[in-house]
């Protein structure tokens, strides 16, 4: 399974070249690979139907025990076929839709990159592998939403999607790592057998919520749903592929995948059904009032994703089965409808429901696709959408809290039906509206590819036993409790489910007739959206910027004085704090009495320091600092460190020269600070000196491991051919450190050079 993923990645690299060689047919050519992969993966259907699965593992980071492992079972196969199948459709559709765009090569490459990542998500067995592919889908989605990066709207939409889904992804990573630790495995296929262990874990709630947040953000659930609407800035094929058929289903996939591990508890059911129902209702209520058909479809997608989450929360085999059927039905009809909107946009020059009308006469083929997919969305037999809706209603009626849920689902479904009517009836039937140019129908390559998923929904709905059960039932076994799945049939007799189904369609027609009123309502109260469930995002974004600005302003004052102050304060606070709480006061032991010359040198050092701090002349301060340095180098030499002594003397000399030269450029000495702030600085300086002194004394007594120095002394002559161990450490044992240090030194010198030269060249800014 590594080969399919890698082959798609390789094709992504080649895609711009293919487009350059064959600009008119690149999309069709590139679609051959996903078609081939669909056939390749379809061969596993018998294995999976028999309850089998296929595994494959490769070493990835062997030192950390991370493997790149893949596992193909029923659930993975359902999603894999969706990814490759819809991928082929969308690539082929893009050939005529975007092939003339100057960025078409980049577009194909990104679409294929996404396809490879998404295949990785659904096939990965290792939790870390899953996470990596998951983030890759986020990144490719970011790049695809921002494809028209010259538009402000596209950039903002891409950023929003990236931030929200990455936030969720990080939560998911934390959850998966904790989960892996609790169950002692990071292989999902092993994890599913250890559900008992996980659910009994004291921190179960924490990692369940973390993983669920990741899944919910990816699948655009309340309160993360807003990004999906902003993502509509992407080219329409992207919306069809990523933002309705595949990527947004990744969250649903993860929830389904982890149901055997995390599911079945009250917390799980309560979270998923609450969030799912809220999302289903939120998305549906706003959908019909949207006049931009893409945003309308996106709202309806949010609603459908809510329904899927809710169904996964209902602890009943029928609910899981309904989720999988609905997922399939939704991917097919919503993908097709997005493509229809793309064709309308192309053919009539608008996708505004208020302007479009009567296109049936100009675009008969597009109308055919729209009606087929739209009827599935409404839920009319014998389309797959009908089966999906039936299973949804049936599952909700069996749910423990069915009273409330049925009300929510019925209301949401009515609005969804109205939304479907807005997409299908308003633009194609009714009065023709004013359009920019005479509408023309889509080219065969467009409408035929768009017809594939729409017709797929029809065929699957008509022959569910042949076309749906082989996909869905094996997947069901990987998710649900071990209950025999119910056969999928169009006709169940006159049941309450059927009555409810008919009622939602009738209600939907009524809502649809009120759509102009809904639009008025939206126009009048649209400003209230910032108080709605998605309103936190702009606030949070502004909050982050405010925080960044404020703390930058507080810390980066541009004054050297305050940098030194803050650094010293932090050192005293952190190191001193730790020293106070962890280190007992070291006894001041003296191994031998101090000799007179040592005492004199120390006093010289001390008086030099005091003079440097109190004098008002820079030159005298510098001279007395030189005294401090020379006295220190004497002390080094007294105590057996001649190398250090030599270096200290030399550094001291050069520092004095450099500072003297730098002082020439400074203005005269002025006292700019108040007495209070100088006293404060004295206190901090004394504290810093004290902390360092205590630390040095304490370090003498602390021996965590055998001293490294003795080993180095012993190895110096035999291994490094040198008797001066200090130098041997610098140029041999720790040569890499030295290499880094001289690089830093060189950079600093270049920096000084640049700063001085810049100031000389721009005297006005000095």
């Amino acid at each position, binding site marked *: 399974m590594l080969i399919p993923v890698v082959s798609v990645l390789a094709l992504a690299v080649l895609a711009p070249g293919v487009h350059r060689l064959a600009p008119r047919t690149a999309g069709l050519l590139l679609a051959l690979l996903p078609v081939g992969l669909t056939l390749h993966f379809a061969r596993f259907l018998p294995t999976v139907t028999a309850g089998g699965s296929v595994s494959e593992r490769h070493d990835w980071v062997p030192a950390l025990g991370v493997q790149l492992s893949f596992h193909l079972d029923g659930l993975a196969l359902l999603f894999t076929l969706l990814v490759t199948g819809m991928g082929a459709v969308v690539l082929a559709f893009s050939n005529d839709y975007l092939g003339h765009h100057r960025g078409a090569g980049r577009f194909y490459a990104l679409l294929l990159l996404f396809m490879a990542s998404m295949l990785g998500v659904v096939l990965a067995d290792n939790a870390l592998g899953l996470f990596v592919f998951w983030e890759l889908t986020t990144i490719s989605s970011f790049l695809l939403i921002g494809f028209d990066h010259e538009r402000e709207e596209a950039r903002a939409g891409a950023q929003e999607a990236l931030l929200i889904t990455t936030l969720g992804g990080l939560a998911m990573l934390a959850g998966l790592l904790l989960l892996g630790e609790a169950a002692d495995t990071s292989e999902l296929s092993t994890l599913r057998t250890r559900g008992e262990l996980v659910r009994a874990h004291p921190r179960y709630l924490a990692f369940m919520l973390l993983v669920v947040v990741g899944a919910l953000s990816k699948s655009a659930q309340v309160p993360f749903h807003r990004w999906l609407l902003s993502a509509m800035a992407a080219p329409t094929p992207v919306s069809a592929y990523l933002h309705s058929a595949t990527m947004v289903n990744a969250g649903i996939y993860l929830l389904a995948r982890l149901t055997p591990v995390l599911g079945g508890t009250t917390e799980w059911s309560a979270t998923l059904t609450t969030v799912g129902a809220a999302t289903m209702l939120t998305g549906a209520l706003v959908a019909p009032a949207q006049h931009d058909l893409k945003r309308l479809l996106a709202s309806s997608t949010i609603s459908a994703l809510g329904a899927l989450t809710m169904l996964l929360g209902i602890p009943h085999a029928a609910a899981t089965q309904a989720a999988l059927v609905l997922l399939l039905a939704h991917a097919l009809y919503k993908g097709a409808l997005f493509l229809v909107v793309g064709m309308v946009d192309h053919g009539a020059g608008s996708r505004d429901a208020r302007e479009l009308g009567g296109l049936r006469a100009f675009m008969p083929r597009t109308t055919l696709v729209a009606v087929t997919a739209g009827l599935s969305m409404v839920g009319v037999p014998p389309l797959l959408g009908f089966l999906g809706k039936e299973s949804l209603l049936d599952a909700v009626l069996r749910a423990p809290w069915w009273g409330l849920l049925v009300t929510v689902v019925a209301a949401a479904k009515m609005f969804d039906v109205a939304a479907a009517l807005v997409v299908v009836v308003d633009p194609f039937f009714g009065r023709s509206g004013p359009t920019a140019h005479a509408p023309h129908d889509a080219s065969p390559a467009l409408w035929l590819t768009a017809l594939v998923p729409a017709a797929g929904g029809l065929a699957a709905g008509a022959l569910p036993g042949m076309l749906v059960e082989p996909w869905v039932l094996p997947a069901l076994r990987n998710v649900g409790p071990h209950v025999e799945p119910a056969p999928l049939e169009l006709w169940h007799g006159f049941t309450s489910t059927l009555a409810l189904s008919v009622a939602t369609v009738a209600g939907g027609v009524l809502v649809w007739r009120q759509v102009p009123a809904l639009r008025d309502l939206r126009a009048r109260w649209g400003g209230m959206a910032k108080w709605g469930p998605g309103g936190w995002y702009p606030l949070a974004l502004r909050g982050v910027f405010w925080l960044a600005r404020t703390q930058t302003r507080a810390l980066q004052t541009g004054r050297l004085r305050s940098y030194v102050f803050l650094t010293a304060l932090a050192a005293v606070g952190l190191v001193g704090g730790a020293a106070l709480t962890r280190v007992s006061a070291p006894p001041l032991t003296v191994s031998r009495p101090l000799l007179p010359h040592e005492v004199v040198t120390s006093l010289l050092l001390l008086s030099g320091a005091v003079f440097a701090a109190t004098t008002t002349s820079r030159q005298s301060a510098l001279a007395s600092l030189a005294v401090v340095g020379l006295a220190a180098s004497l002390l080094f030499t007294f105590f057996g460190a*001649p*190398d250090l002594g*030599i*270096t200290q003397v*030399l*550094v001291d*000399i*050069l520092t004095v*020269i*450099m500072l003297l*030269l*730098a002082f*020439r*450029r400074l203005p005269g000495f002025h006292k700019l600070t108040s007495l209070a702030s100088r006293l404060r600085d004295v206190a901090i300086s004394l504290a810093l000196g004290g902390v360092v002194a205590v630390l040095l004394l304490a370090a003498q007594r602390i021996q965590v491991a055998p001293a490294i120095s003795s080993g180095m002394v012993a190895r110096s002559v035999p*291994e*490094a*051919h*040198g*008797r*001066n161990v*200090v*130098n*041997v450490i*610098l*140029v*041999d044992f720790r*040569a*890499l450190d*030295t*290499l880094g240090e*001289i*690089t830093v*030194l*060189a950079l*600093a*010198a*270049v920096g*000084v*050079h640049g700063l*001085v*030269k810049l100031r*000389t060249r721009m005297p006005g800014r000095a």
Partner: protein
Amino acid sequence: MNVILRAATRFVLPLLLLYSVVLLLRGHHHPGGGFAGGLVASAGFALHALAFDVAHTHRLVRVSARRLLGAGLLTALASGMLALFRGRAFLTSQWTTVRVPGLGAVELGTPMLFDLGVYLVVVGVTLLIVMTLMED
């Protein structure tokens, strides 16, 4: 005073440079090394620049300070790369013994080359800073 400083510099600078090379070469067995040697040489050049002027020192050194920096970094890097040709890890020291007439067996190793790189970088850094500050 300038006259005295100049006269003294003429004598002291060659001695300082010689001493810096001695420090560089003896560093492996006795106190010294590329860092200290480089500092001594830089101090000598700084003295020269103070006694005469920057243009004079430029003419004396001939190579620009930035080139010295680059040469030093490349030398240090190259001394580490030599180990790679023998299939050892980067910066592993490599030694060989050479018979020099009059001196007997002399041990030569990549750490000495590395030290030379350090020497050049230190000279380059101080020269660059000092000369930049002294100009104009």
